[in-house]
């Protein structure tokens, strides 16, 4: 079954055709990687999925419902979580609170006036947040202020915020950029494990081919705003069009 179906998406910024008739199908339970040279439109495409940008034309269907024109929080509530490329965290709050917020959003919806229940009595939510942080090897950092963490840790926190929501679709924008090799491998293991155990659908944008080929079930190659190839990983490596796109000999 298809989790996400993208049909004919176009987006123009002034004179630049950032996305040109993008078609993409992501099957449920798969890890789908989107790769492509810089400026190919990968992040723009992701922004269209989460409501940060609205395409000029086209449709984005998620399990049969149209995501376009919805508010970011509605899209998230529909089951799409995004892990940002540059960490967008709540830097004035602790690591634990950063993870509890998306967990509460998952449980309570877009608004809940729970002004009198003490936060420390939310033991279930707290436990879930700690579990996810443990999975990512951050259990010793739960009480740290988010702003005081290293960049790599912020990336992992980002991921924890996405994972704790148990989304149906997880969008990962270069999840391992800025991480050490060891952390990268650990992240690959975590994502692999979650993908296998929960059957979570993921779209991952990545430059690191080691990550892409360790994780992806399927790969789309984006160049100049359009999908030039979509295939299984083993067929991508030798593909002439892909090599041209990366080496710049396409035209």
């Amino acid at each position, binding site marked *: 079954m298809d989790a996400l179906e993208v049909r004919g998406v176009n987006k123009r910024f002034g004179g630049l055709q950032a996305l040109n008739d993008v078609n993409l199908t992501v099957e449920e339970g798969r890890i789908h990687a989107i790769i492509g040279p810089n400026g190919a439109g990968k992040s723009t495409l992701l922004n269209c999925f989460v409501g940060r940008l609205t395409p000029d034309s086209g449709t984005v269907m998620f399990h049969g419902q149209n995501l376009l024109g919805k508010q970011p929080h509605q899209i*998230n509530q529909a089951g799409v979580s995004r892990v940002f490329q540059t960490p967008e965290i709540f830097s004035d709050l602790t690591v634990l609170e950063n993870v509890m917020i998306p967990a509460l959003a998952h449980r309570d919806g877009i608004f809940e006036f729970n002004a009198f229940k003490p936060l420390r009595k939310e033991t279930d939510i707290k436990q879930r947040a700690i579990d996810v942080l443990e999975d990512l090897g951050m259990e010793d950092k739960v009480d740290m202020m988010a702003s005081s963490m290293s960049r790599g840790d912020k990336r992992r926190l980002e991921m924890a915020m996405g994972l704790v929501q148990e989304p149906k679709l997880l969008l990962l924008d270069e999840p391992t950029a800025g991480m050490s090799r060891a952390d990268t491998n650990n992240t690959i293991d975590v994502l692999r494990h979650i993908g296998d155990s929960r059957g979570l659908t993921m779209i991952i944008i990545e430059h690191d081919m080691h990550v892409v080929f360790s994780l992806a079930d399927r790969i789309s190659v984006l160049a100049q705003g359009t999908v030039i190839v979509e295939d299984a990983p083993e067929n991508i490596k030798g593909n002439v069009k892909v090599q041209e796109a990366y080496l710049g000999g396409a035209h």
Partner: protein
Amino acid sequence: MLGLSRNDFLLLLFVLLLVAAAPMFLNPFPEGSEFAQFNAGYPDLMQRFVIFGIFAIGFNILFGLTGYLSFGHAAFLGAGSYAGVWMLKLLTINVIPAIVVSTLVAGVFSLIIGYISLRRSGIYFSILTLAFAQMSFALAASVLTPITGGETGLQTALHDPRILDGAGSVGGNIPAPSLFGLEMRHSWQVNVGDWLWTFNVGYYLSAFVLMIAFYIAIRIFRSPFGMMLKAVKSNNQRLSYTGISPRPYTLAAFVISGMYAGLAGGLMVAMDPLAGAERMQWTASGEVVLMTILGGVGTLIGPVLGAGLIKYFENIFSKINDNLLHQWFAFMPDGLEDFMVTIIHPFVGKGWHLTLGLMFMLVVIFLPGGLIGGLTGLYNRVFRRRSKAR
């Protein structure tokens, strides 16, 4: 205890002790002594401490947690005051309906203004709230005179209907606001040695309300709702990508803080049944911002402290005059004495605002976290140094 963590409960107890014992420790100087003018333990001033404390606690729920800087909260204080006086005029001289209704009226008023103003953020939000408050002030002072009493203000009168208790005149006087017959202005005075302690009904009612207001604020700060408000301040955008709609949260915070302002307004008229339009002016909105900043934005006790300090200094500094200064510096040689008086003169008496402005600048420049932030920083530094030494 009471659903609070141990530390919060201790904080609540501390505040309870503070307000309960205020009539005593705010009068540290014996009656008739040279320093008696620094005493603050008289009813009128103490009432102002707690009432503005309530106002600032509420303001802090909006500004301290969400970071939305409203320059129009005096409008809610004013609306609450007017509603309160009307209850005293129409229903009963008992203050309870006045206090309850003023809170509710301010709540409705803030819901309307907040709903519109919160469509914008940053300085645009500040200007929208300022515009609404200035409009309310201008209208209250002019066109709405039948409701607000215009520039002279609204007050209770001899022949108000007061349909619930029909309390007309007592011996030809306008009845004073009371709590089931116990007049707000009633005080018991106790002489202990040279000291004079005044226990006032109105003050203790206000202090009781302050405790409830403070307790609710602690619960809000420690709730998931409070955490969401902090997240709004920290990263509003990210919150919506996390599946939370920030606007209902900020609106709820806005209405809660508006209700606190209305409650403060209601208490003001319960103490002294007079409401004027100047209570809505933007300078009054600025004052509550000052209190919150001075005490410490986003801290629980900071706003109460800030309100108390500003009201205390306002009262003391504005009372000091040249005669008093000459008295103080009388021990100096004449030339030096005159010189000292000339130096200090612009800062006291009518020049109190100069001191206020300077104080304000110094706090913002050197203590961005306010007094509480400064104290916490100091504590941490000492504490850390100790732990390093180990």
